[in-house]
């Protein structure tokens, strides 16, 4: 390995450590906050509500908002699928040469589409009146950075020479993760959980309602 490759790999590892420690800090902070279980007699099932919140409740046809903004929602879904592909590439990169070419090609295609979806989302954020009004600088930067991370993962999985670049971009992305909006990857689970408990317990979600 050249000095550049080694340095990039070390940077990526440092980034990963910062991201993991940072996320762990956020999780620990959340668990340090008060959380009172609901003592009101249930009308439905909180656990079924949580199940719904993490599964069917995320389906694009399930909400009026996602039906109305189907293109934007699917663009977001594609972006996140691309992020998962990029993370797979990141973890598997030391063994990239032994991964089947067809799998590498698939990862690259998914990441490529995901990265493009991310950039289109960024364009929408610049272009749409409402989105501009609610966006912070962090929103623009985070989407741009993660899109770059996803796109460079596509390059890295196809060409070993792109791996150092991917590592450097990964390092920046991962270090930034706990500090900017990307940390919603942690809070998302708490939010959906609270959603499921609330609407499940109260019997609002149809499948969770007691008869």
């Amino acid at each position: 390995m050249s000095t550049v490759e080694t340095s990039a790999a070390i940077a990526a590892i440092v980034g990963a450590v910062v991201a993991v420690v940072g996320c762990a800090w956020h999780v620990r902070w959340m668990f340090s906050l008060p959380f009172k279980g609901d003592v009101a007699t249930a009308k439905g099932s909180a656990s079924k509500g949580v199940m719904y919140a993490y599964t069917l409740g995320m389906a694009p046809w399930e909400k009026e908002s996602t039906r109305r903004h189907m293109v934007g929602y699917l663009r977001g879904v594609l972006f996140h699928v691309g992020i998962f592909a990029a993370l797979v590439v990141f973890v598997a990169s030391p063994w990239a040469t032994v991964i089947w070419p067809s799998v590498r090609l698939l990862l690259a295609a998914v990441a490529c589409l995901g990265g493009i979806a991310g950039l289109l989302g960024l364009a929408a954020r610049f272009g749409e009146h409402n989105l501009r009004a609610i966006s912070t600088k962090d929103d623009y930067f985070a989407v741009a950075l993660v899109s770059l991370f996803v796109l460079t993962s596509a390059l890295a999985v196809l060409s070993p020479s792109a791996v150092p670049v991917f590592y450097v971009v990964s390092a920046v992305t991962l270090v930034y993760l706990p500090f900017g909006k990307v940390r919603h990857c942690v809070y998302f689970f708490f939010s959906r959980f609270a959603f499921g408990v609330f609407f499940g317990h109260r019997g609002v979600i149809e499948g969770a309602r007691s008869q």
Partner: protein
Amino acid sequence: MGKSDNTELTKKARELLRKQVDRKLAAALETCVRCGICAESCHYYVADPRPEHVPAYRAEKLRQIYRGLFDPIGRIAPGWVGAVPVSDQMLDSLVETSFASCTMCRRCTVNCPMGVDNALVVRAIRSLLTATGRAPEMLEQLAEAAIMREEGLEYIKDLFLEQIAELENELREKVGDLKARIPVEEQGAEILYVALSGAHTILPASVLFYATGTSWSLSLFEAANYGVFLGDTPRAKRITQRIVDEATRLGVKEVVVSECGHAYTTLRWEAPNWFGKPFPFRVRSLVEVMAEWIEKGKLKLDPTRNRLAVTYHDSCNLARNSGLIEEPRTILNACVTDFREMTPNKQHNYCCGGGAGLVALPEFSEQRLNAGKPKVKQIKATGASIVAASCDNCRHQLGELNEHYEMGVEVIGLAELVVNALVLDKGRVPGKEPVVAATV
């Protein structure tokens, strides 16, 4: 900058927020990615599509404060994450945002891919404003008057009993039975019925309790809880305490709340958590009780007495926030001949715009009437002549929308529709005139 010492104000805001930020509120504050697809789920936005009416925009106002106080990046680089320092001016601007531009109906929460509870965020803003002396005066007065009703009970009780005596006479006339009663402070009654101040929430329920031979007692207190609208949990708890004490004193098995969305949500879902334990009595809405009576055949109803087309407005508190979705439909299908659903309905229904205390705030009536436009459109599309609503705030709002937008409908509660269809023993029907509340 604000007019007072911002260091003091910042310190106070930090303390107030720190007390409020639990895991649920933190999740709501941290999770929003500002995708903006919540926009059209809000009736304010549908009525007037501007960025200020996007739910995420409103919630962002508290996030701006929160980041400035609690987020390290918000302190180091506030402009980067949109953190804003606390000032009098910025808190003043939140009065309209939280008290006049959101009814905390949770339609945006149901429609958020992340499940962000914006209602919780808006409640936290209201709480902050109330604690810093910025809450609308009328809500303060109504909350205090509710507390006064207990503290000054010896002074108010006679007037209340005078009111009930008058209503008892009307009940007797209506059911044609001189022995019919509206019991108050009835030790050993099975049900404590908590109505609102208005007679329209007492009389129809009295007829139904009479018709079903229910053992009941009317509460000395009203169900409304303006402390909730203020985001002032200690005061809301104090107002609820009156009812809990009365129910415990009388030893009732059940507290039945009148047709009122926030009162039901408060007593059924919120209050047990304030007290830290379930109540020693069951809490139900009159809507649930009526549906049960119908299902068990305890009420003989003649739906042909309600022949006009009826549509039903789902109260956000009862449907989306309490799961009372099928019960109103059980009632309507039994007591009217032409029930028409509005679209969307049930837990997806649009808020009428009158919730969260808005009907008691004349200074925001323009915003409120404007926010009711989607509801007006929904009602008109059904072609119905009668709009049934099982929440008093909704009824006030729908009544005003009816006048303002000249809908030409009649707004009525479910209990009144049931009484209209009621056939008493031996084929008698109650009263000469149908019990219809006047609109505002």
